[in-house]
């Protein structure tokens, strides 16, 4: 009886493999009878079954699409107050994320009123990225970004804000939106210069990935 041949799996292994579908009620009669029989004598598998049911509950309650959207929105709300060290947030390890924080701060709803607007103005005038064709008030408003993005880019995690600025300038690119949950940025480059700008971005050592996002659909 306890003589599993090389081609036959031990009942325990077989039952353990089937537990998820046992738990979701997706086994056929024969499979289910086998698992039932095994569960009656295996405390380990009964315990695993309880965990399976917990996992199912969690996955049913979880919605990655909401998580990803919420994380992005929450980052805006959690953006540090103006006095906080915007450029070195303690919980963001990579320097590229300091840039993300700043973007989040800039695109935050204008709840902080004038102080917020002043800060944004200083940041924009002092250091950033926005071309004149993309007026700064958009960053403080709630309107969705214009659909002018034609390139997506991911910067290396260790790229500094200066690096990012130089890279964008050299490529003639402006930021339309971002960071996405994967820390990518949507850029606009002049359509006529897109090939050259892309090549420039792709060869830049601060850029992890740069791809066109208009056209080229399969």
């Amino acid at each position: 009886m306890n003589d599993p041949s090389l081609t036959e799996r031990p009942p325990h292994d077989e039952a353990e493999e089937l537990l998820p579908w046992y738990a979701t009620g997706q086994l056929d009669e024969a499979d289910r009878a086998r698992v039932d029989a095994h569960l009656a004598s295996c405390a380990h598998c009964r315990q695993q079954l309880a965990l399976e049911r917990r996992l199912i509950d969690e996955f049913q309650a979880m919605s990655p699409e909401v998580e990803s959207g919420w994380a992005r929105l929450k980052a805006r709300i959690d953006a540090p107050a103006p006095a906080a060290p915007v450029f070195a947030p303690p919980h963001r390890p990579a320097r590229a994320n300091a840039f993300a924080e700043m973007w989040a701060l800039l695109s935050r709803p204008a709840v902080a009123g004038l102080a917020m607007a002043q800060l944004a103005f200083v940041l924009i005038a002092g250091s950033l990225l926005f071309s004149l064709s993309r007026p700064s008030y958009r960053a403080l408003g709630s309107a969705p970004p214009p659909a002018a993005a034609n390139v997506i880019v991911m910067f290396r995690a260790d790229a500094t804000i200066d690096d990012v600025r130089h890279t964008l300038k050299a490529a003639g690119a402006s930021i339309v939106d971002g960071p996405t949950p994967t820390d990518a940025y949507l850029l606009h480059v002049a359509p006529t210069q897109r090939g050259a700008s892309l090549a420039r971005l792709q060869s830049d050592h601060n850029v992890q990935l740069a791809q066109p996002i208009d056209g080229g659909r399969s």
Partner: protein
Amino acid sequence: MSWSGILKRPQAEEARPAATDERELLARIAQGELAAFERLYRLYQPRLTRFLTTLLKRPQLIEEVLDDTMMVVWQTAGNFRGSSKPSTWVFAIAYRKAAKAKARWPDPLEEPEFDNRVSEDPLPDEELHQDRLRGALLKAMDQLSADHRAVVDLTYFHGLGYREIAEIVGCPVDTVKTRMFHARRRLRQAMTGSLMDWL
């Protein structure tokens, strides 16, 4: 003694319309009936969005792959022969489209933002625990390959059987079982790790 009495089916399964309705919709779509296609789209959009969100780490790709998938359904509904369930057919198209998109745009190396979302807020204990547990599970999922994530999502969320999943992802049933076995080990570790932190 049967243990299945204590089990519950995933909610998604309960809320799902009968496969026969969907077959009828596909037949009407094959005749070019746009209203039938719209109905099928509304049925599948949330499920496919969830599935594609699990598969694709680039949010920008999800809409594109979803649209591409549904365009294939619209254009080739006449090819659906009914040997499988309509959902299997549609999900298999989505899986192939997602695989193509991933080939063009490999997953980013950086962790998605929700990996870092262990909250420091003064949440009530239960909420805090739940938040951490979900965060741990999401992180564990994120560290799995897309093939493993697909099997997990199709099993736990979409409530599909292993044979149907094998058809969707185009691999032997034993591979589905093995992937699930591996994935569960990781998820259980994450879950118990989170529980241990809590204790």
